[in-house]
């Protein structure tokens, strides 16, 4: 009896103590730690997103509150030839730039992964396009693409490649090419540095073992380096695709979507409609239209990443 009694007292003491320490409960602590992030995300992501959603089903314009119109805005987009071009432009822009960013970034990463003089300096230097504010560097590019005064045409002319000045930003296809070039220039460092970090996690022993096993350099890359780098590559691609798909700054500064709407992407077209023209609800509809496509891409990539990582 005495033993049982003393046990129950000590139990009670422990329970009493726990009551006064709410943060020792992991559940409470988890919520507390999540709170700041949730507030920030809610304020700056979820709330605007919901507002955009609400806006897109009205006919709001700047200064006019607007009425509920259902999916009219989206229906209008479906028959808007500029919007069709925007979808095509954005996909093309994302596809081409991602391929080149991956290729060039990987190539740079492989070079930087060797040991050479001034390695640390070069690695830092490579990051420049990534560090400079995009609007600034894009302005510099805009000058370089200027048909009459620019360094690009001058070089091509002096080396005899062209005879007549090329109007880079005045022609639809060339303007698209120009913004693609700038995006690649700006995006390669991110690929290079991320992939370099990935390469450095691959033990050099593996390449040496493969060399002894009889694999030539290209085979070593294909059978060893590439598969081991794939998880990192996929994550980097995921980030890049999301960013590129929603790109705004480069196009806005370089061409403003022109000439003749030839280089509009989702973001710039949404901005032009919503802010430029004041058709807020239609602008919201354009940016929301980006969402399902992006979601699809992200889901496919995440599934693939999971498969790669499970291997």
């Amino acid at each position, binding site marked *: 009896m005495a033993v049982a009694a003393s046990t129950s007292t000590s139990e009670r003491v422990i329970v009493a103590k726990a009551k006064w320490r709410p943060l020792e409960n992991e559940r409470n602590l988890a919520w507390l730690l999540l709170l700041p992030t949730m507030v920030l995300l809610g304020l700056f992501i979820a709330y605007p997103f919901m507002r955009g959603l609400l806006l897109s089903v009205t006919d709001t314009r700047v200064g006019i509150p607007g009425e509920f119109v259902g999916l009219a805005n989206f229906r209008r987009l479906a028959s808007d030839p500029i919007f069709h071009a925007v979808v095509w432009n954005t996909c093309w822009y994302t596809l081409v730039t991602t391929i080149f960013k991956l290729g060039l970034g990987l190539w740079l990463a492989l070079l930087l992964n060797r040991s050479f003089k001034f390695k640390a300096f070069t690695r830092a230097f490579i990051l420049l396009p990534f560090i400079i504010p995009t609007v600034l560097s894009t302005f510099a590019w805009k000058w370089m693409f200027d048909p009459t005064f620019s360094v690009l045409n001058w070089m091509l002319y002096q080396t005899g490649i062209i005879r007549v000045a090329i109007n880079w930003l005045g022609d639809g296809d060339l303007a698209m090419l120009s913004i693609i070039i700038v995006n690649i220039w700006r995006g390669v460092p991110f690929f290079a540095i991320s992939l370099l970090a990935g390469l450095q996690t691959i*033990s050099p*022993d*593996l390449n*040496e*073992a*493969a*060399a*002894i*096993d*009889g*694999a*030539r350099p290209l*085979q070593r890359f294909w*059978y*060893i380096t590439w*598969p*081991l780098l794939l998880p990192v590559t996929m994550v980097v691609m995921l980030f890049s695709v999301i960013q590129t798909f929603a790109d705004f700054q480069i196009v806005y500064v370089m061409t403003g979507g022109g000439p003749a709407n030839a280089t509009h992407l989702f973001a710039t077209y949404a901005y032009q409609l919503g802010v430029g023209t004041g058709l807020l609800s239609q602008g919201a509809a354009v940016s929301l239209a980006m969402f399902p496509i992006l979601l699809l891409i992200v889901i496919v990539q995440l599934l693939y990443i999971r498969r790669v990582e499970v*291997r």
Partner: protein
Amino acid sequence: MATVSIREVHKHYDDFHAVKGVSLEIKDHEFVVLVGPSGCGKTTTLRMVAGLESITEGRVLIGDTVVNELPPMDRDIAMVFQNYALYPHMSVYDNMAFGLKMRKFDKAEIKSRVAQAADILGIKDHLHRKPRQLSGGQRQRVALGRAIVRNPQVFLFDEPLSNLDAKLRVQMRVELKKLHQRLGTTAIYVTHDQVEAMTLGDRVVVMKDGLIQQVGEPLDLYNTPANKYVAGFIGSPAMNFADVTIANNGSGLVATNTAMSIAVPEHLAAPLGPHVGKPATFGIRPEDLRLADGSEPQHQTFEAVVEVAEQLGSEILLDVTCGPSSMVASVDPTVRVKPGEKIRLAFNPKRAHFFDGKSEMAVRG
């Protein structure tokens, strides 16, 4: 299978001289162990044979071919790395098959070779697994398997057992030995563990600071070390040393210091003649010491104080001090002594070693 000749090989890393002229002739079928402390250039030497490191100076031959300029794949060697270096994204089967695939063997041949190697190594139930699903010992076997399927001219091992726990290490050591007896492939094996070196090597190469100290069969190194370094490195517990001065007391040569005065054994009297008046080091292995029972001449014994007695069952290791030097004596398990007790130790004069005080080279009769 082939011979390997390493001729006056040097390695400079920028301004660091890692390997300083190593020469070694390895016979066909021989199992040679490079042993030495960490940083002495063993791995570098092995990697130069493998072709993973350029050779600054000197030549390496496999068979009759100078391989200095050949890439690793054309040297027909296989290497087992310390951390195994298994391809993490490939199954055990693919790991072992990779070298054969690269060399364009046909599928059936690859399959039978991998199956055979897996059989020898006892890993045929794991062929579909990934390396990370295996234990350390199993990974080790896969790494061995990857080496043996190719049936290369030479095996190179770089501390292959050092990531295993002590028990597994002993077990794998035996298996390696069996494997070599079965395949007979010429092998160069690097380790810092002298027990591994002694048990595995047909011949053992002791290295230090980028230089070879001595090459010989295990027992030769043990019985007739070329210098004080090798004497202290080979054998466990290590050889005891005492700094002495050689003197002539009229009836013969003696080695003395503040705590002992012992007679120089007959067979060493002549070669030690020129050392009279000079410092030298007296060396004696723990098992060549025993408790004096009064039957031996006084000048083959010395006095010591017991510090610790370690009972091992088959023997007792006595940690003793003898003046300025600490020593270990391996004595009969029935001996009863207490810490602090003064005892007299007798040494076997036939197995006493003397080393020059300056050059530390062994003085031989």
